[in-house]
C-alpha cells in the first residue's frame, strides 16, 4: 500500500490514477496482515525469552544466598536427631520452639547485642548533658568569659587595675597565640607576603 501511495505523490495531480489489478492489492493486503501477525509473534517470543532470562538470574541469585546444599542437608538432619535424642526432655523442644518463634518475630530493624557492647545508657546520659549544655550555654544565652568578668571587676573595683590578660601570664599567652593564628589566617587570605 505504501508503495502505491508513494507513486501517487510522485506523479502530477492532473494525470489519471493508475490502474491496479485486484490480485495485486489483495496480495499486498494479505502480506501486511501476515507481517503484523509475525511481528506480534516475534514480540511475544522476545518477551518470553526476557522473562526466562530474568527467572534464571533470580534463581542463580537465590542459590548464591543460600548456604551450600550439604550444609542445608545437615540442618535438615539436626532437628530430627535432636527430637530423637531428647524425647523425654521437654525443655529442649521448648527452647527450639522459642528459638523459632524468636527468629520469626525479630524484625529487621532489631538485632541481638551483648550487654557489654550496649552503650545506649551512656549515650542517653550524654544526650541529657547536651540538653543542659545547650539550654544554659547554647545559642540564645548571653554568655561571656570568666576572664572578661575578672577584668570588669578589676576595672570597677576599689583598687582599679589592668585587665586580666595583662596580668595573668597564662591568659596573656593564650591571647597572643590566638592573635597570631588569626593574623596568619588573614595574611593567607589576603595573600600577603609574611613580613
Amino acid at each position, binding site marked *: 500500500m505504501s508503495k502505491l501511495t508513494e507513486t501517487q505523490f510522485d506523479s502530477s495531480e492532473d494525470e489519471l490514477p493508475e490502474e491496479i489489478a485486484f490480485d495485486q492489492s489483495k496480495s499486498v493486503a494479505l502480506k501486511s496482515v501476515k507481517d503484523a501477525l509475525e511481528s506480534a509473534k516475534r514480540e511475544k517470543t522476545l518477551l518470553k525469552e526476557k522473562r526466562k532470562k530474568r527467572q534464571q538470574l533470580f534463581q542463580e541469585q537465590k542459590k548464591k544466598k543460600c548456604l551450600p546444599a550439604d550444609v542445608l542437608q545437615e540442618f535438615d538432619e539436626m532437628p530430627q536427631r535432636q527430637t530423637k535424642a531428647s524425647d523425654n526432655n521437654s525443655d529442649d523442644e521448648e527452647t527450639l520452639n522459642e528459638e523459632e518463634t524468636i527468629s520469626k518475630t525479630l524484625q529487621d530493624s532489631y538485632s541481638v547485642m551483648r550487654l557489654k557492647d550496649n552503650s545506649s545508657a551512656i549515650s542517653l546520659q550524654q*544526650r541529657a548533658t547536651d540538653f543542659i549544655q545547650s539550654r*544554659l*550555654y547554647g545559642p540564645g*544565652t548571653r554568655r561571656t568569659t*570568666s*576572664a572578661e*568578668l575578672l577584668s570588669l571587676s578589676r576595672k570597677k573595683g576599689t583598687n582599679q587595675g589592668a585587665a*586580666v590578660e595583662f596580668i*595573668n601570664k597564662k591568659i596573656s599567652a593564650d591571647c597572643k597565640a590566638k592573635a597570631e593564628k588569626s593574623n596568619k589566617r588573614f595574611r593567607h587570605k589576603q595573600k600577603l607576603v609574611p613580613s
Partner: protein
Amino acid sequence: MGEFKVHQVRFFEYMPSGIRALAFHPKKERMAVARMDGSVEICHCSDRFYQEKVIPGREQCGIEALSWVGDRLFSAGLNGEITEYDLTNQKIKYTIDAYGGPIWSITGNKQGTHLAVGCEDGNVKLFEVTEDKIQFERNLARQKGRIISLSWHPSGSRIAAGMMDIIQVLNVEKGHSIHRMLVDKGVGKSRSKECVVWSVVYLSDGTIISGDSVGMVKMWDDQTGTLIKSHNVTKCDVLALSVSQSGDSLVAGTSEGTVVQFQFLSVVLGKDEKEWVRTRIFKSHTHDVRAVAEITTGVVSGGIDTQLVVTPLFDKAEVKSALRKVLFPHRKLVSCARKANLMLFQYSGHLELWRLGESEGIAEPDMSLPISRKPEKLLHLKVKGEEHIRCSSVSPCGEWIVYSTASSLRLYKLHCDNSNVSITKISKLPKVLSSASQLCFSSDSSHLFSASTQSSVHMVSLNKAGCKFMGTLKPKSGSKQPIHLLAPSEDGKWLASANSDHEVQIYDLQIRKPHCTVPTYSSAVSAMAIHPTTNCLFITHADQQMFEYSIEQKQYSDWSRSVQRTGLHRVWLDRDTPVTNVMFNPSNPSHIILHDSYMLCIIDQSLPLPDNSTQFYNQLTLRSLPEEQRKLYTHAFKVCKAFKEILCVEQISDQSLVVVERPLSDIITRLPKPIKQKKFAT
C-alpha cells in the same frame, strides 16, 4: 620572733568542683552538698559549716539531685541510677537502676515512706523506702516529655512535676493527672524555645511555685489549676527554688548569680490577706546558682563558682553573723616529705609529687630570693578505676606514697636518685587495709597508720621487703563514726585520732591500747598536732577554739587553762575559715604555727594573751615602735597576712616553710562561662 625561709608555691593547680545540689536535714542541722564530680559533703550548719564527712565522687557520675529521707541520704543522676550513701563509712551503700533513662529529680515525701523520681522518659516512679533498701512500687501516669523537677505536697497525696512548657499536678494514689498548667514562653527570643520549668515547690496551702528558664517565678493555685501571680526576677533562667521550714519564705537562685528572696507577707498592715512579695536580692555569686536551701537562720546557696555561700537573714538569726563563704575543702590535700623536700598534691583522679626548688643568698625580711633551681614534677600517679581519691600521704623520708579511694588502698615505694624516679607498687597488702578514711605515716617513716571503719586505726610496719600488719587500735567508746584526723608524735610513742563524734582518742603505740581521751567539746576538731618535746596535743576546733592537752599528765596544760580563763580575742573567733594545720618551731619550743585560708599565725606561749581591748593585728604597729616599747604591746598571737588563699602551710627542714597558695582568680578563669551583665561605662 621567728625567721623562716618561705617557699611560696603556686603550682598546685587545684580545681574545685561546682555545687550541683543541696539538701538540708532540719532536725540534725546538717547540709548535704553534692558536687558536679559526684562527691557529697556533709556540713554541720551550726558548727561554722565544717565539712564533717566527705564521700568521694567518681567519673561519669552526672549527679543531679539529693534528698534526705529520715536520716538516710539518696541521690539520683543522669546515669539513671538512684544511690544511697553509707554516711558512717563515707561511701556509697548501693545503687539501683531506675530504668527510666536519666533521672532529673529525686524527692522524698514528708512522711518518709516514699521516694519519687522524675525520669527522662516522662515517668514519675515511686519507690517504697524499706528498712535497708528501696523497692520500686509503681509508675504514675506517663507524661509526654521529660520530668525536670518534682515536689511533694506536705500531705503526700499530690505531686507537682515541672516539665517542658507545662506543670502537671498528679494524684499519687491513683496516678492520674489532676491539672495541667501551661507555662508561658515569654517574649522575644525565648518564644522559639521550649520553656524549661527548672524547679517547683509545693506548699501546704496548695500553692505551687515554679521557676523557669524565662526568668519568671510563678505562683499557681492547685484547686483551679491557674496562675495566681508571676514575678519577673531575671532575664536569664531561674535554676533553683527552696522554701523554708515554716513556709513563709522562699529563695530563688538564678543564672546570673543572684539569689532572690520572696516572703509571704500581708500587703496591707493589719489585714490578713497575704501575698508573696519579693523582698531581698543577694548578689553573692559570679556564676550560675544551681542550688539553694533555706536553713533556719539564713540562706545557703551554691553554684558553678564552687563556693558555698551562707547568707544570714537577720530577722531570723539571733546572733548577727557575717556572710560566710566556704572556699577550700576543710581536709588537707597537700602532704609534705619533710626530710626530702618533696610535696604530694592530691587531685581527684591523680597524685603529683614535686620536688621543691632552691634559692641562694641571704635575704632581708620580706624580700624574695632568686630561684637557683626550679621546682620539678617528679611523679604523676593516676588512679586505676573510676573512683576519686579520698586521702593520700607521703612519708617524711619521701620513700613511701599511699592513697586510698572509697574501696581500695594502694601503697607505693619510691626510689629517687637525683634524676631518676622509679616507683614500685606493694602488691601484697594485709587484707585489713581495704580503704581508709585517713592515712598517716609515723615521723620516722617506719609505720603507716590507716584509719578505717568503727573509729579504729590499723597499724602497719614498713620495711625494705614490704609491709607487715602489726595490730588494730580500737577506741574505748566503741564509736562507729569515721576518723578524719590523725596525729603521730615525734618520738613514735603516741598517736591521736579525731572522729566525727567529736571524740579525740590518744593511743599508746608501745602497748597498742588506748591511753586516754580528751574531754569532748561541742565543735569538730579541725587540726591537731603533738608537740615534739613536751608531748602536748594541740587541738583547734571549727569554732576557732584551741586546747592544749598534756598526754603524759592526762589533763589540760596550764597554758590552755589560762586561754580558757581569759577567752580568745573577738577577732580570732570571728574568722570564717577553720585552722587546717598546726606545726611547731624546732628552734623555739614555745612557738605554735598555724594557718587558715587567709592568714599564717605564730602563737608564742611565753608572751601574754590579748584581751578584747587590745589590737589584734598589731604586727605593723609593733614594727614601727622602738624595741623597748614593743614589749609593752606584744601579745601571743602574731599574724602574718602576706599570703592569701592558702591551701596548706607545711614545715620542711632547716627553718623553712612551704605555703601552697591557690589564687582565686586562677580558679575563676577556668570556670565555665558566666552570664554577660551589662554594666555602666564598660
